[in-house]
């Protein structure tokens, strides 16, 4: 392994790991390599116990599984199960927030409804009366509408898609048989259909993939974000700091890691409340920092500093300066507990679903949120007491980063240019070519692509060609660490058209400089914000979302969630670049379906490209084609 091509943060952290003789994901990847070709091609089937079956890609060996399943059905079935994993994660997250909000309304959980504006705007969407009513009562109606979906067996369309998604797209989905009712029923059906001896038709299975992705998009992402905004407030633009240098040797460093702000919001609250105890223990203060997507949630709503994306989560522990890492759900490497053991770090799991050997488990339930959050912060202070005075290795690298670009915040900025028709300035600048188009760069950070700075290079290539980039999730952390969420990045990297637009917008917003060329729209669950933004632009133009000069990319795919999110963009007709290749290449028909034929179904295609510049060129060219179809040059 060479450190030469590493982004500077990784290079510094890996040097610490090497100095301390600690094993990292990169070492384990090297040991794991080469990885199995059957797995990569998707032609390994472990669905039943006649197997595992593998299709010889060279054609000499078995051409079907023992049961006779074809390679195409095999890869489609495997892909559907990945998509279920992703959708189940987001729907589960959404349901957890939903039940928390219900408990809050019932006075059983100690949270305040901070997003009154969101309650009222959603009430309009769902036809809930608001005149003369308490916000809490309106909120309860919305909660009941969401709860209804999880219990219904009447096969009526799901509320959060049928009342919330754009009508034109709904018509397309209905015609394709993709509309759904209760998300739990669909997850059950998908698992049933993919067990041994059921759906063996690759085309049928791939339609199930699209349907499951739609569920992820609307009853996962959109529902979850709507509820979180109602509970915790709608994000507003603020400036924060990113990268490992936000750790502070003299403070109690609490790293919140995972995805669910129901935990991290309380940790942040108690960190403020217990500051005196930390000072009494000899610390300057309590420094809550964000890792992965719960970090994004905190930075979006409170400007909390961003310490690390997912693939750096084990590395920042090697600084020895993290006093507590508190985790909830999703993307938590079991290795973290092993690294924490080498230091005074308290590694604390909180969710019954995420149990990790050698972690300290402090069960967090919204009902007892205050008591548990207080104990967790005290555990961090105690760990600081043990750590105090010992040497730490904190690379002094951090950059400024603007976050908090909710659709509401974006419209707020645009309204300063045109209060009556806020979207118009954007549309005018797309029409005149200053903005070539839009790209959503989303998803994970993968050690398989970090060494070549895949995401940074992709984004720089896009903005240089006047593509406005929006980002979420761990790719947002990467962009932040690369300094791409700053006005300076507009000056340095943006093409002339994009630079002009962002300068005008920045001045209108009173920033004293340009808006950044990359807009941080939140956690991975916040991808629904990107969809809402596209829907607003499409609505204003009177076209479908799939017709917009817009394209998606998950340049460093790791988690199944990125597969179902990608699928939800495909269902909208938004083409998507992805790296590495999804595990479908062993199925020629499925490969062709996703890379070509899907264009005739939803209007979108998938493009695999592992090299950043070529990926950017494909995305720009795709946008050019969309522009041409709209009659734009």
């Amino acid at each position, binding site marked *: 392994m060479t450190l030469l091509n590493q982004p500077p943060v990784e290079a510094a952290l890996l040097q610490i790991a090497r100095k301390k003789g600690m094993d990292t994901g990169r070492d384990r990847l090297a040991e794991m*390599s080469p*990885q199995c070709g059957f797995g990569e*091609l998707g032609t390994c089937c472990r669905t039943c116990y006649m197997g595992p079956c*593998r299709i*010889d*890609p060279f054609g*000499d*060996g078995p051409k079907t599984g023992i049961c006779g399943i074809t390679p195409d059905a095999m890869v489609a079935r495997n892909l559907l199960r990945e998509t279920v994993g992703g959708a189940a994660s987001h729907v589960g997250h959404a349901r957890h927030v939903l039940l928390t909000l219900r408990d809050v309304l019932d006075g059983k959980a100690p949270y305040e409804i901070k997003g009154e504006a969101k309650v009222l705007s959603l009430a309009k969407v769902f036809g809930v009366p608001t005149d003369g009513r308490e916000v809490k009562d309106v909120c309860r109606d919305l909660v009941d509408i969401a709860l209804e979906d999880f219990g219904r067996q009447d096969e009526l369309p799901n509320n959060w898609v049928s009342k919330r998604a754009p009508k034109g797209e709904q018509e397309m989905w209905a015609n394709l048989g993709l509309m759904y009712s209760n998300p739990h029923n669909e997850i059950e059906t998908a698992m049933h259909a993919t067990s041994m001896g059921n759906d063996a038709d690759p085309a049928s299975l791939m339609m199930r993939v699209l349907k499951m992705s739609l569920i992820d998009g609307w009853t996962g992402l959109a529902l979850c974000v709507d509820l979180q905004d109602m509970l915790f407030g709608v994000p507003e633009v603020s400036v924060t700091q990113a990268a490992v240098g936000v750790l502070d040797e003299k403070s109690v460093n609490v790293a919140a890691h995972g995805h669910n702000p129901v935990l991290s919001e309380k940790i942040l609250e108690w960190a403020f409340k217990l500051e005196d105890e930390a000072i009494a223990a000899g610390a300057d203060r309590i420094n809550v920092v964000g890792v992965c997507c719960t970090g994004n949630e905190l930075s979006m709503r409170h400007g909390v500093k961003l310490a690390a994306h997912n693939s750096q989560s084990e590395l920042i522990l090697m600084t020895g300066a993290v006093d507590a890492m508190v985790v909830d759900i999703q993307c938590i490497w079991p290795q973290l507990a092993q690294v924490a053991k080498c230091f005074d770090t308290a590694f604390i799991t909180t969710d019954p679903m995420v149990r990790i050997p050698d972690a300290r488990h402090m069960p967090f339930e919204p009902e007892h949120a205050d008591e548990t959050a207080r104990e967790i912060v005290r555990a961090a202070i105690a760990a600081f007491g043990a750590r105090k005075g010992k040497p730490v290795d904190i690379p002094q690298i951090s950059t400024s980063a603007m976050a908090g670009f909710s659709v509401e915040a974006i419209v707020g900025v645009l309204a300063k240019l045109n209060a009556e028709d806020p979207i118009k300035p954007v549309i005018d600048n797309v029409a005149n070519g200053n903005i070539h188009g839009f790209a959503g760069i989303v998803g994970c950070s993968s050690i398989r692509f970090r060494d070549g700075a895949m995401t940074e290079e992709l984004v720089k290539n896009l903005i240089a060609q006047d593509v406005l980039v929006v980002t979420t999730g761990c790719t947002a952390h990467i962009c932040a660490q690369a300094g791409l969420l700053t006005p300076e990045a507009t000056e340095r990297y943006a093409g002339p058209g994009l630079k002009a637009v962002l300068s005008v917008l920045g001045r209108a917003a009173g920033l004293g400089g340009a808006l950044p060329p990359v807009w941080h729209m939140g956690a991975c669950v916040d991808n629904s914000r990107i969809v809402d933004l596209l829907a607003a632009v499409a609505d204003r133009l009177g076209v479908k979302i799939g017709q917009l000069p817009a394209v998606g990319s998950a340049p460093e795919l790791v988690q199944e969630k990125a597969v179902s999110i990608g699928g939800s963009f495909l269902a909208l007709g938004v083409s998507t670049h992805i790296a590495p290749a999804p595990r479908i290449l062993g199925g020629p028909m499925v*490969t062709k379906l996703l890379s070509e034929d899907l264009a005739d179904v939803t209007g979108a295609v998938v493009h695999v490209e592992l090299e950043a510049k070529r990926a950017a060129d494909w995305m720009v060219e795709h946008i050019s084609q969309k522009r041409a179809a709209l009659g734009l040059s």
Partner: protein
Amino acid sequence: MQKAIFTLMERCVACKSCEIACAVAHSQSGILATAQFEKPLPRSRVRITSAGAYSFASRCVHCEDAACIAACPTGAMHREAKTGVVAVDQDRCIGCWMCVVTCPFGAVTADPGTGKALKCDLCAVRTAKGLGPACVDACPTGAMVYATPDELAGMRRSATAMASVGAVEEIEESVALWRNLKGGRAI
């Protein structure tokens, strides 16, 4: 000439079935399910090694003029008279690793359990029964071939001849695409 194991690199997909089969063949029980609990753990004599978009099954090729035999100071590394297999006499091996140093294939390794040289024995037990070596029989893509050099050359000639007259299809498109995509970066 003695049969050897050859690797057809273009066919290897790095599933490591050969590694597993080798270890199992050299275990006490001979069964995967129980072999993984044995002490000492059975060890594979073959290793799948990354080579960019390709992977290569590295193991002893039982060289005609074996550097490891020449370098061995105790005579532990020797050629079996009857089978031609390059083998280690466990009693005479002193663990000096001259064989590890001289083997150009990295096919001889140090067995941490015994402190002695570890290498492919060409599955003497299996071949005596008329079976192929475990790695060859386990390979699901035909990437490993148990043949004499002449037989292998014959196979290669035949394949080229067939391809020259268009009688054989190119490698499946899906595999070519997969390789191509992996080819973007050498791990």
